[in-house]
Structure formats: C-alpha cells, structure tokens
C-alpha cells in the first residue's frame, strides 16, 4: 500500500515539476508548483513526519506559493506568454537533463544509502525541545543563524526596494537609464 502511494506521489511530483518548468505562462507554472509542494507534503505524512508535513503545507504550499502568485499578479500581465525558445537551446537543455538523470540513476543504483532510524516521536514537544537545545543533538545555533540570515535578507530586500528620500539633482545616476 505504502509503495503504491509512494509511486503515485512521485509520478505527480515529476510530471507537475516538468509542467511547471515547461509551461509558457507564469501563473500556470506557479499553480503547478503548488501541486508539487503539496505532493511533497504527502511524502512527509507517508513516513510519519506529521509535523514537518504540516509545516510544508502551511509555509510552502500555503505561504510561499501564494506570495509568488500575488507577485505575478502585481507585476506581470497574467496572460503574458513567454516566447518559445529555439530548438538548439531545447536540445542542449534536454541533453543535459537526460545525461544528468542517467548518471544519477546509475550511480545511485551502485551504492547503498545508509539507513537512519526514524525518531520515535516527532510531535511538537520533541521538535521544540530539539530546536532550542543548546547541547549535543540540539539545533539552537542553526536556528539562530537562520534568524540572522532572514534578517539580513530582509534588510537587503528593503534596501533595494526602497525609494530614495532626498535626491541630489546633480547626481550622475539621475541620467543613467
């Protein structure tokens, strides 16, 4: 039963990913992406990581994709259709993808992944404790580093987006395109 669900989910993810990349319309790509992310959440539920699955649903499927769709709506014409690339690029990209995939599959078949036993509990309590534990096995430091990363990226985004307050008219940038 698990295997059947696994293969269904995999097929959904693969086909939706391809459609997301190949679609000529931005909005459609975003919707396909939504499907991919939801299907990935399915994987988490399948192996019993309920908390992670929920996070995947709320943050990625619920949050990020919605954000992407909003930004597409704000900046672009929804009907904007991207041009069809010429055949040579398609050929190169296709060849690379095929080569990469073949290589990957072959190398993976030859070697074994080492098994990691799933933690017995993945409830909110354990996750929280692990996340904020400064000692061995805890993830307090990465957690804090991620928070700095987010802060830095926000500052970066704001500084690029923010309008200039007082502009010196003689500034040479004024004339720049």
């Amino acid at each position: 039963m698990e295997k059947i669900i696994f293969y269904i989910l995999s097929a959904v993810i693969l086909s939706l990913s391809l459609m997301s990349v190949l679609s000529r319309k931005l909005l459609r790509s975003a919707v396909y992406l939504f499907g991919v992310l939801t299907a990935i959440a399915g994987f988490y539920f399948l192996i019993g990581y309920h908390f992670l699955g929920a996070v995947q649903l709320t943050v990625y499927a619920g949050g990020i994709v919605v954000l992407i769709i909003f930004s597409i709506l704000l900046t672009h014409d929804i009907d904007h259709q991207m041009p069809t690339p010429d055949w040579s690029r398609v050929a190169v990209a296709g060849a690379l993808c095929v080569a990469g995939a073949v290589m990957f599959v072959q190398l993976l078949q030859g070697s074994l992944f080492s098994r990691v036993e799933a933690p017995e509990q993945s409830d909110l309590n354990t996750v929280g404790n692990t996340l904020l534990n400064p000692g061995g096995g805890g993830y307090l430091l990465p957690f804090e580093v991620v928070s700095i990363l987010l802060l830095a990226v926000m500052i970066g985004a704001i500084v690029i987006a923010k309008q200039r307050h007082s502009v010196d008219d003689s500034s040479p940038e004024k004339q720049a395109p």
Partner: protein
Amino acid sequence: MEGYAYTIWIILLPFLVFLVTGVLSLRIRPQLAGWIGTAGILVTLVLSLLTAWNYFSAALPADGGWPTVIPVNYTWLRFSDTLVVHMGVLLDPISIMMLLVVSIVSSMVHIYSLGYMKDEPGFARYFAFLSLFSFSMYGLVLATNLFQIYFFWELVGVSSYLLIGFYYDRPSAVAAAKKAFIVTRFADFGFLVGILLLSWYSGTFDFLALNNPDGAAIAGAASATFMGASVLTWALVLIFMGGAGKSAMFPLHIWLPDAMEGPTPVSALIHAATMVVAGVYLVARLFPVYHMSGGAALEVVAWTGAITALFAALIAITQEDIKRVLAYSTMSQIGYMMLSLGVSGYGGEEGLGYTASMFHLFTHAMFKALLFLGAGAVIHAVHSNVMGDMGGLRKYLPITHAAFLVACLAIAGIPPLSGFFSKDEILAAALHHNPAIYGIALLVAGLTALYMFRLYFRVFWGEEKAYAHKPHEAPLVMWGPLMVLAALSVVGGFIPFGHYVSSDRQVMAMHPEMSIAVTASVVSIAGILLAMWLYRRPSALPAQIAGSLGSLYQSAKNKFYIDEIYMGVTKKILFAGIATPVAWFDRHIVDGTMNAIANLTARISSVIKGLQSGHVQQYAVGFVVGVLGLVVIFIYWLKF
C-alpha cells in the same frame, strides 16, 4: 659574548636615513638632507669604532683565537627544516675590519660631498642614494650567510647603478651605469649558481658552519666530482666569478673604467674602497672553504689576481683621464689582494698571504679614497678630467698637493707609509709560494710607482696651463676629509695587523723580511725616478718612448682592446650567432603561435560568445556542464 645587539643599528640606521631623505627629498631643503645623511653615517662610524674597540680590547678566549660573534640572527626564509636563511650580524676580525673601512670612507665621502656636490640639482637624491649604498654595504660585510651576502650584493649593485647613473641626463653616464649593471649581473649569475651548488651539497648557507675547520659541512661537495674537479671546486670558482665581477678582475673588469662617469666622491666610495673590494672580502670570508677544497680554486684566484694586477698597471701608464688612471690602479691593487689570497695557506706562518691581503685591503682603502677625493679636488678646481689640461697645480692647491703626495708615496710602497708594510707582506707571501707570481708582483710594484708619479708630476708639476679662471683650494669640508685620510695613510702601516687578522684567527707575529723590503723599495724608487725624469718637466721624451714602443703602447692605451673584443664577441657571436636565430624564432614561431592563439581565441570566443554573453541561463548551462564533466572525468573515466 653579549652586548653587541646595537650593531644591528649600523645596518638599519642608513636605511632609515635613506627612507627619510628619499621620501622627503622634494619636501625638505637639500642641505638638510645632506646633513641628515652625514649625521647618520657619522653615528654608524662611532658605533663601528665602538664595536672594534669592544671586540679587540676583550680578552682572547682560552684557545687563543678571535671568536665569531653573532649578536643578531633573524630567520628570514625557510626552505626546509634544515635549510634556513637568516638575516643577521656576524662579527669577526675581518668583518670588523671591513666595518671600519666602510664606515670611515663612507663618512669621509659624505662630508666631502657636502662641498663637492653643493650646487648640483638632486643633492638630496644623491644623499639618499649614498645612504642606500652604505646600508647595502654594511649588510654585505656583516652578513652571516651566503644568501644574505647575495641579497646585499645585489642591493649594492642596484645602488651603485643609481649612483653611477646619477647624472642621468648624460648619455655616457647612463650607458656606463648600464654596463656596470649588466657585467656584474652576468658575474652574479655565476655567483648564484655557485651558492646554490655549495648550499645544496653542504645543506647550509651559514658561514659559521661552512668555515668549520673540520670540514663537516662541505664533505659531501668535496667528494662529488664533475668534469675532473670536485663539485666544491666548481662551486667556489663560480662564487669567485661573482667576486671577480664586482672586484673588476680580468676579464670582467670592463665596467670599472666607464663607471668613472659617476660623481667623483662616488668613485672614491664605491670604486676605491668598498664595493670593488667586496670580491676580495667574499673570498676571504670563505677562505677556509677555499683552502679545504684543495688548491685548484685558489690557484685560479691567484693567477686571476696576478694577471689583472699586471694588465691593469700597464694600461694605467697610458691613460690620459685622471680618474681612469685611478680606476686601473684600483684594479691593479685589487689584483694584488687577490693574488695574495690565492697564494696563502691556512694557519700559522702559512697564512701570511691572507693577513697581507686583508692588510692591503685596509691600507689601500685609505690611500685610494684619498687619491680619488684629491682627484676630485683637482677636477673641482680645473673643471676637467684630462691630464692634458692640468699642470703646475702645486702652487694653487697646496693642501691637496700634500695629501696627494702622501697617497702616491703610500701606494708606491715607500717606507714608512702604510702601503709599504702591506705590499711588503704580499711580496713575502708570494715569494714563499710561487716565484713566478712574485716576479709579476715585483714588476707591478715598479709600474705602480711609475704610473702614480706620472700622474702626480703631470698634475702638480710640469707646464702650467692657461686656466680659464684661477684654480683655488677646495673648502674645508673637502680638504678636512683629505687630511683625515692622509693621516690614516701615514700611520696605517703600524697597526700590528697579524695580531688581529689571520687565516686561523690565532695571533700571528709578522716579521718584515729585510731582503724583500729593500728590493721592493728599490724597485719603487726606480719607478718614481723614472717618472720624475720623464714628466717632471715638459719634454718630448715620453712621446718618443711611446713611439718607439709602437703597437705595444697603442694596445695598452686602448686597454688591450678588451672592450672591442667584447663588442666583437657580443656582436658576432651573440647577435649574429644567437640573437638572429632567436629573433627568427621569435618572429616566426612565437609570434606565429601567438597569432594562432589570438586567431583561435577570436574564433572560439565568437563561437562560445554565448558563454560569456551576459545570458545568465547560459552561465547556468556552463555550471551544470562543469559538474557533469567532473563526474564523467573522475567517476566514470578515472574511476575514483
């Protein structure tokens, strides 16, 4: 032995002065730069005297030999755990003697230059270069190892290049500077190869280890052979080649006469007393190694010295330019020192040549610097270098005249002036070793007296010329140093040199040998009398003699055509034989290849222009191709 740590300042101080005057040369008054430079060098003079006093007044160690003191040794480069290059200060009798020579002459030249260079543009630059030179020279004489000596050796080369080319608006000066640089660089190439050979086999650069009398460090090099001689001998001959380049030994001497294009005080400093004797110092520094290598390398040194001494003395008789006479005279005297080192043995009385060589180095530095500075005063007075423009100057330049006479007597070896004692020792050493060399040396002694007094009589006696304006005596800053050097030239011979400097560091008593002393004095006096007869009064005699000697005189006057030979060799062989094919190779092969590469690059870049087109998608393709390429090469192909 503690308490010599301050000696590092002898090296560093001139460098600091160089930095200060060099950086500020355009900001401060030129006079100030001169005073800073002079003050700096005087401080190092005081420090050097202090060092000598401390060293020689200290009690001798139990085994009776003068010790080697290394107060400062700073690790500079680490080639391997054993082969380490240091920068440091090494004090032993000969380095202290050189320290005295350099500091005394350099101080006198600094003071003298305050007057001589007074109105030159670039006065501050001149003093900056002088400080740089002094710094390099101190570093050289105090070097603790071969690598340090090589480093400062090159630095000395560079700074003398700057000083010779000081009048850079004069094409001949620039050419002379370039010539000096190239010839010595050629010689230094041999030096470098020699150093590398020696250090490769001995595993050390340090003089202390190399000169170890039981020869542990150089055993390996002595046993390996190459083309019939031991590698050690080859290395030492190559090192000597470097020394011969700097010390203007035949046939690498051609740069020295041309180098007289530099300001005269510079000639006194570089080409009389300090840089040119660096080659002698180098051989003396490695003397135990030379001795241990068997006789071959020293034989080369001895004969090179003897030939140079004779050859240069012959040329000196015929030269018309006062500074060129002195230049050839310098060559000849350095040849003397070299031959003396070459005939020396090691230890006890055998080592007389070594002591004599160092002794002569010391006395020669004093009277030759005096001669150059005196010549400078003459040139300063008559504004010409050529003896034809001079004559009867003793009335106008009494002080210079007196100083010059002292120097001439000293170099001719008239007792009791300093040159007599040192030359006497050299002759004694040569006689005990090799009668042929002794004969040459004796002949050179006579020739020396002849050409020096030829110079003296033609400048100060002879017919008075019509001077554009009346020659006048130089100012105090110029004749003061002359007096100091003259005094040293007079009394220098009474230093019991063997007490301080000997090949095995033991105290050695020197016994003047009456027979040699008398012979040498007679030969010298004969030379002087001959010069007096020929040149005291204007006469046609010299011209007649020159005419009767015909081609010999001509070839001597033309410096035996060595320059022409070099030109011929370089033109015919280097240019025709080597340069033309190289040029062809350059034009057809190298250029062709470069053009091909350029075409190829242009073609490729038009093909792969997409790769650097600014299209970020294609950069991504490049990235992925790179990753896949690595996987293919290393995992599939090479199977790691």
